[in-house]
């Protein structure tokens, strides 16, 4: 990593003592990236961009906010009406959470489709899931801060999930609350943790990137890079592509911020929190809805909580559950169809989570929950019985449609 030569004497002097420039050059400039990445590979860096936006807007929002139940709701309105550009900061932050999750969900499903979780990228996948878990905690606590009705009742329902833990459940909930109900101590600690956790995410992202640069990027063909002829340097080829992606993301993100800033929100959260009245229909933010549907699908308190957490925990074991050695769904005809069914099941679960738990919705939610969990054993069986299509010999081979395409003995061209 060190030992690079830089033309600039000052950079050279610093780098010999602290190799930041060598590290930067190694991981952001020279990093050999497969030359066939498609646009689905943009969403990792887009998620990173959203993290930076969230931290930047969040720091300035914190300067106008006060984590006290007597003033919190008013403080958010103060930011909206009185603080210079406060409305912009808040709407960027509020909708930024949704777009952060959109990027991360696309990133996760891309990994699923192209088998990016398989060896040697198991830890890369696990670190990504950890980031996702910490994100969910951060988002949940952030939603509590405006101290509206949905903030309060969301906090009540989610913290009460832990009361399902046998024996010590009630002690855990009291510890989370710092009282006998969601109240001022709860709001205070949620604010403290909401400010802390994004920096934990930064640390996890750093490890995620280190793991990525160790096992290198997967690609749409899912086959290993054979040599330098299959890669191009990260800069300028992918920096410019990521920059273009950021431009497209900003079109959508700022479009919502400026033209429909409350599109993802719940009107009830503009009613100040009232501990004596539960809104008739409480729903979490959209990015939690599939898990909320799983929680409600099981007609037993502990069972529902176990299923909900299990739905995420099981993803950590995906690299070992999937018994197929072929990564990309391009070469797995049956997996490809099951992938789209799984995605549809997740969307159906999301819809069920948004509806009151009555009538057919309960039945549909239960079927979709069963389908969600069925995906995993199916994946294991599929790897044993599915006949994958023949893999190309190299990333370059399918592009060079000439004689080399199908011949194993064809020597690789030298880069």
């Amino acid at each position: 990593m060190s030992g690079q030569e830089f033309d600039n004497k000052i950079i050279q002097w610093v780098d010999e003592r602290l190799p930041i420039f060598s590290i930067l050059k190694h991981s952001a400039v020279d990093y050999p990236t497969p030359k066939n990445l498609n646009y689905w590979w943009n969403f990792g860096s887009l998620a990173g961009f959203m993290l930076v936006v969230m931290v930047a807007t969040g720091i300035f929002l914190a300067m106008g906010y006060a984590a006290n139940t007597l003033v919190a709701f008013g403080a958010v309105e103060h930011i909206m009406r009185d603080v210079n550009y406060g409305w912009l900061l808040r709407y960027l932050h509020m909708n930024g959470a949704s777009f952060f999750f959109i990027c991360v969900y696309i990133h996760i499903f891309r990994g699923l489709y192209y088998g990016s979780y398989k060896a040697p990228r198991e830890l890369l996948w696990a670190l990504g899931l950890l980031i996702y878990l910490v994100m969910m905690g951060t988002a949940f606590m952030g939603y509590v801060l405006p101290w509206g009705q949905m903030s309060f009742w969301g906090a009540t329902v989610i913290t009460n999930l832990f009361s399902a833990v046998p024996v010590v459940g009630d002690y855990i909930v009291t510890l989370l609350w710092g009282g006998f109900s969601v109240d001022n101590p709860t709001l205070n600690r949620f604010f403290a943790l909401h400010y802390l956790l994004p920096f934990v995410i930064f640390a996890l992202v750093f490890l995620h990137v280190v793991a990525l640069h160790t096992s290198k990027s997967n690609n749409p063909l899912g086959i290993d890079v054979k040599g330098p002829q299959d890669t191009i340097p990260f800069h300028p080829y992918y920096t410019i592509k990521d920059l273009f992606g950021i431009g497209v993301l900003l079109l959508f993100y700022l479009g919502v911020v400026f033209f429909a800033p409350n599109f993802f929100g719940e009107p009830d959260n503009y009613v100040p929190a009232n501990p004596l009245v539960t809104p008739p229909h409480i729903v979490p933010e959209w990015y939690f809805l599939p898990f909320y549907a799983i929680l409600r699908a099981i007609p037993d308190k502990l069972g529902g909580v176990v299923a909900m957490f299990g739905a995420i925990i099981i993803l950590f074991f995906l690299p070992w559950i999937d018994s197929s050695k072929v990564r990309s769904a391009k070469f797995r005809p049956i997996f490809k169809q099951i992938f789209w069914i799984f995605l549809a099941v997740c969307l159906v679960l999301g819809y069920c989570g948004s509806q009151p738990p009555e009538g057919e919705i309960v039945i549909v939610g239960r079927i979709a929950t069963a389908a969600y969990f069925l995906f995993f054993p199916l994946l294991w069986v599929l790897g044993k019985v599915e006949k994958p299509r023949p893999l190309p010999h190299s990333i370059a081979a399918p592009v060079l449609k000439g004689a080399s395409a199908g011949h194993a003995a064809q020597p690789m061209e030298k880069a």
Partner: protein
Amino acid sequence: MADTSTPTQGTPPEGESRRDFLLYAAGAVGVAGTALAVWPLIHSMNPAADTLALSTTEVDLSAVAEGQAITVTWRGKPVFIRHRTAAEIESARKVDLAELRDPQADDKRVQKPEWLILVGVCTHLGCIPMGQKASDPRGEYGGWFCPCHGSAYDTSGRIRKGPAPLNLAVPTYTFLTDTSVRIG
């Protein structure tokens, strides 16, 4: 090492195990010490003394007519006080305990049969059940109905239907006079 007078020099196995013991003992002290040091941090998140001090609420019941219900706040939670009618008491008493999810006789849940006093928090995930106002839905057992996930409670506040595992909790309370009660 060479110039120290070590009589164990000829018996290395003994010296090895003593060193191992010191290593494990030091490790154990370190782990226990860290755990003890972390406890104040965790315990600081438990309810503070002033939160614990807000533990009683006194209520005047004289204005609550038969069939009416009022909600008071105790420890930040709603407490339901319902002045039950004779029919409600009767229906709560005649329930067969065997068909209850959390079996408890009605007379174990009240001090005076006409006054039903409950913590108004659904035992599922903590929503406030409806049924206090005359216009509220009371569920099919005539008690309370939780709108969040559909739990229904009877006229003794016992869970009858839906995902909640337990009856509505009965707080500790004392009747100071016939028409005034102290909760907590």
